[in-house]
């Protein structure tokens, strides 16, 4: 569908281009919600027991598993800290973001 893309949003130029329903049309590809984050999870992989609990609990699906180890997608992680709270061996720590 025709639309103007800029860094963060899609702006339709006419009503005819828009779907009739209020709905997302791929805006998350441009809208990197990780920029909302104040604190970031950092994982000490040497202590990780590969239980997958952080992957399972992440509400934004921002933790993936690569080579059986967790990897945070900082483009979308909002820094809620649920992974750090739930980690049974406390190998995830929340660290303040700096500009």
């Amino acid at each position, binding site marked *: 569908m025709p639309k103007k893309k800029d860094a963060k*949003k899609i*702006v*339709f130029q*006419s*009503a005819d281009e*828009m*779907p*009739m*329903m*209020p*709905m*997302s*049309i791929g805006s998350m590809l441009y809208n990197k919600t990780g920029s909302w984050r104040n604190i970031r999870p950092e994982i000490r992989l040497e202590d990780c027991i590969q239980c997958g609990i952080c992957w399972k609990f992440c509400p934004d699906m921002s933790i993936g598993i690569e080579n059986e180890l967790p990897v945070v997608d900082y483009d979308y992680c909002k820094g809620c800290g649920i992974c750090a709270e739930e980690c049974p061996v406390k190998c995830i720590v929340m660290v303040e973001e700096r500009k």
Partner: protein
Amino acid sequence: MPGEVHRHGGGTEMKKVMMGNHALSYGAMLSRAQVIAAYPITPQTQVVELLSEMCADKTLNAKFIKVESEHSAMAACIGASITGARTFTATSAQGLALMHELLHWASGGRLPVVMGNINRSMAPGWSIWTDQNDSLSERDTGWMQFYCASNQEVLDTVIQAFKVSEALAIPSMVVLDAFALSHTYEVVDVPDQAKVDEYLPPFKPPYRLTPDDPHAFNGLTSPEHYFELRYKLQKDMEKVPALIEETGREYEKLFGRYLGLVDDYLCDDAEIILVTSGTAGYTARVAVDELRGSGLKAGNLRMKVFRPFPFEVVQRILKRAKKVAVVDRNISYGHHGIFAQEVKSALYGQAGDIPVFGFIAGLGGRDITPASFLEVVDYTLSHDTPEDNILWIGVKK
């Protein structure tokens, strides 16, 4: 009680004696509703009672969701509809008011939910009897509203409402009077399922909530786009009158009954036209016949569709009359009867400057009788213009 009543054998049309509430249930069943979520409230209870039985015994292959309030009922309908399920509910009065917030979610989200609403007066004083203030309070929520006058019309209109709603992605309310219709038994032609299937194919929305094509629905919408969504809803509303006439003719071809925007009775040469809605329309006709018998050219215009308001057809029919008397079973406090407002706005700027007399009768279920209409006609004939914006019929002043 139900049991045998709703077992709809194959193949042929059949006549059944049923109450208005069950006509709603049969309409939903024949439309093959897939999800029904409802909370019981007098005088609507039998609608969902029968539907729950139909779901239990598989007469209807639908998911019946029990909820703890009407707010939740409409929320469940919205959730189901957004996945592409054909969805039905029913309510009345306070229950409809409790749904109010969600009515906007359904229409703004462009979800073609169909709902039966039994017109019951709003409390307090607590009442279970009929008037139209419950549904008319939802006038501006973006739902279509159909006011029925017979159980046959109720059943037929549910099927048509699904067709129109799904074509334009706008929800519909099918409205009937408490007790005068909801609990009154009439003979109803139950259409053949195969023919209904031909008329109403499965619901296939252009967008739906599915993992195959993920989208978030009804989220934050900035001023850059919100206005256009409202513009599109109105533009689609404007397509409804023509589509109702088209689908009404299609229905007539299959089932022999036309379903239009209005139902006019002896209006062609009428000098005075009584404008009514709901069951009061048929009462008006008794009065019209009586008046015709005594040489007065009276007619009745029964408003079937209230939203969208069918301006063109109302203008076409009423502009032939010398006087118009609107009988409202509702009131907009501080203004006047709601149909009277709408008729006046429809006639604004039309040639002839036809006087519109606005009567209010029958609030809280007080009977509207042929004598009420004779009183309306007496007043209208004996005055050049109305002395007041509201002319009260039957109130103990």
